[in-house]
């Protein structure tokens, strides 16, 4: 069982909460047919690509086993690994900051930017800064943050919200992207077509001057090596390289779970990650830096190590492997629920199967409507199969459903329909002879089904079932009864 945990983030959690129950959010999103078409197209494209490049490696399963063990061993010795990282990063001229929660991380970053005198920053896509709502916060502090990743740019220009951890604008198709660019990019060519290559070129032109003049950049990190103090960013477009190389000041915000014990671990992670995320053998660019390198790249280098609920996840022995996540997005790309609802339905920065476990684990199951997230799955297991670090997402979903039910027990005095159903079911299914007794009522169900042998409408919570499905008439006799009549009497 989960231990009593007192490390609840004291301040703001940032963007980790579902504010309306998932079924209601899903209902709304399902009505957006254009979004569903776009998502279906994109997720099916990436599924095929992933399978092809994963299939090329004869040792994929061994890599997954290694990846899973590496992450577990990092998490189980997290304190030592973080201290080791801090020592090495500091020794090479970097500065380490620690942030208990989103609010604290935001103020640290603001103060670091203020020290440089800059009021503008360029950003390379980072889940951690998305999670803490850094851009919104900086805006209130008079600092403008420019997203430089193409999909982030589309979201930012479109005044939209990200719906995917890797491709935040996955819910938009090329024509919609073109329309956003035409409307929101000041210097855009009015004859811009919706060809992806042309759209990419428009983004290049739009951001070029920013990159070349930026004094401060903010990044996330895909990993931190404890044994050397090295940080790595995995990207495609070169916007990462621009941010990590050209400005004078580089501030990285990274969750504490991103630390890897040994340099050699990247030989595993860098095979797992690109194949699982964009379905490429390797992403176009990966940058690694260790503190400050004299005469090459930023000379003022910081990292903010962010907790924001991660230590809470660690305290749940059934849920802690969620911290192994390397944010590849494979689980959402293969998820039949995500494919239909899109990422906005999950409320939090982290959508899809990983979000359905990570958000409630980070905040606690009782925060807002996060308790509806673990039910947003048919438990088909496609996520577990795809996960490069073998996080058993379905099992953690079930575990969190248990946490939810237990937390509700004391709350409502009158049991819900589901409570009654489960209690009754527990009695019936808890003994063969109870079941035998209840099965005597099967003919009644036959009666209810009537002549065409179909039940078309059920009351209460079961109405959801009969909204689009019939139930067949039950048989006249259960198997159990048939067996005692046929086999045991002979």
């Amino acid at each position, binding site marked *: 069982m989960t231990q009593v945990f007192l490390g609840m983030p004291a301040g703001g959690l940032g963007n980790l909460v579902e504010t309306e129950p998932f079924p209601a959010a899903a209902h709304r999103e399902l009505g957006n047919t254009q979004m569903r078409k776009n998502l279906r197209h994109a997720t099916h494209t990436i599924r095929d690509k992933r399978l092809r490049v994963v299939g090329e490696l004869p040792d994929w399963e061994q890599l997954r086993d290694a990846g899973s063990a590496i992450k577990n061993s990092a998490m189980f010795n997290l304190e030592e690994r973080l201290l080791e990282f801090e020592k090495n990063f500091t020794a090479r001229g970097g500065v380490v900051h620690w942030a208990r929660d989103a609010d604290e991380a935001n103020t640290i970053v603001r103060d670091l930017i203020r020290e440089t005198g800059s009021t503008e920053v360029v950003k390379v896509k980072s889940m951690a800064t998305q999670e803490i709502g850094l851009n919104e916060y900086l805006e209130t502090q008079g600092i403008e943050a420019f997203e430089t990743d193409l999909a982030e740019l589309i979201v930012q220009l479109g005044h939209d919200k990200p719906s995917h951890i890797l491709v935040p604008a996955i819910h938009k198709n090329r024509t919609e992207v073109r329309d956003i660019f035409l409307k929101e990019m000041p210097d855009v060519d009015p004859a811009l077509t919706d060809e992806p290559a042309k759209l990419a070129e428009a983004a290049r032109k739009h951001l070029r001057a920013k990159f070349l003049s930026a004094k401060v950049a903010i990044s996330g990190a895909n990993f931190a090596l404890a044994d050397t103090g090295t940080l790595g960013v995995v990207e495609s477009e070169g916007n990462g390289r621009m941010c990590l190389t050209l400005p004078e000041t580089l501030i990285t915000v990274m969750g504490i779970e991103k630390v890897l014990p040994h340099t050699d671990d990247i030989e595993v992670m860098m095979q797992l990650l690109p194949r699982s995320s964009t379905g490429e053998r390797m992403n176009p660019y990966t940058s690694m830096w260790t503190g400050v390198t004299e005469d090459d790249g930023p000379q003022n280098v910081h990292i903010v190590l962010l907790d924001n609920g991660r230590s809470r996840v660690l305290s749940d022995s059934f849920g802690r492997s969620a911290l192994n996540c390397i944010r590849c997005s494979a689980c959402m790309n293969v998820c039949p629920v995500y494919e*239909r609802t899109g990422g906005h339905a999950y409320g939090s920065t982290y959508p899809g199967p990983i979000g359905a476990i990570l958000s409630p684990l980070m905040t606690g199951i009782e925060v807002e409507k996060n308790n509806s997230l673990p039910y947003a799955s048919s*438990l088909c297991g496609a996520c577990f199969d795809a996960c490069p670090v073998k996080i058993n997402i379905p099992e953690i979903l079930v575990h969190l*459903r248990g946490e939810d039910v237990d937390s509700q027990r004391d709350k409502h005095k009158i049991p819900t329909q589901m409570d009654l159903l*489960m209690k009754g079911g527990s009695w019936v299914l808890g003994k063969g002879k109870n079941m035998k007794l209840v099965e005597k009522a099967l003919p009644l169900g036959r009666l209810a089904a009537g002549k065409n042998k179909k039940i078309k409408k059920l009351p209460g919570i079961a109405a959801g079932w009969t909204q689009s*499905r019939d139930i067949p008439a039950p048989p006249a006799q259960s198997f159990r009864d048939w067996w005692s009549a046929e086999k045991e009497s002979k």
Partner: protein
Amino acid sequence: MRIALFATCIVDAMYPQTAKSTVKILERLGHEVIFPAGQACCGQMHMNSGYMPEALPVVENHVRAFDTDDYDVAVAPSGSCVASVKHQHAFLADRLGKPELKERATAVGKRTYELSQLLVDVLGITNAAEQLGSYFPETITYHPSCHGMRLLKLGDRQLDLLKTVGGITVNELPEADQCCGFGGTFSIKNPDVSSAMLDDKVNNICSTGASACAGGDASCLMHIGGGLSRTGAKPKTLHLADILASTMEETVAL
């Protein structure tokens, strides 16, 4: 061999034919089938709905009924229930801090097989027509249920058995590996998403021109069948066991 049948609650109460078919197939091969009378349910509905304390008596009951020396192997005509017995019972015992239950549940799980697993891996069936006398002169398609495919890694065992049934035509189901949207109480708690998944499954089945969709899990088949029935679509659903039990003399009706 002495084989203990775990009928599963849904087959026992709603689809007794499928349990009878399972018995028929195994007896045809010369094995003795027993039905441990105390059995009821694997408990996954409770566990998957988060009702762990309520699941406990159900799981304990199953372990009690099957933790005996009275049989060699146990079989169930359901990938999902077998996956629950093999994996989820130990998980529940762990979660509720019951090491003794965990040990017994794990032992029962090791001896429990899904029907196609038993037929192919233990009993060496490679040709249903020749070895089981299976005959079913219809065009079918096949939906591989998620838990059999992903948790038990059944691969093509069920499909391969179906393909070797006499008189049968098997049309490939587009997007076969996609979940039908059942997911137990998922279909009740998230009816809209579940229905959207079911719609796609129903459309894919209809596109094959088959007169029946076969599968290895009665619950998924009930879900898919309920959707087909509601839309007035022609194809029916049929359990793998019923098709394998069907013979030239006694052909199962659609």
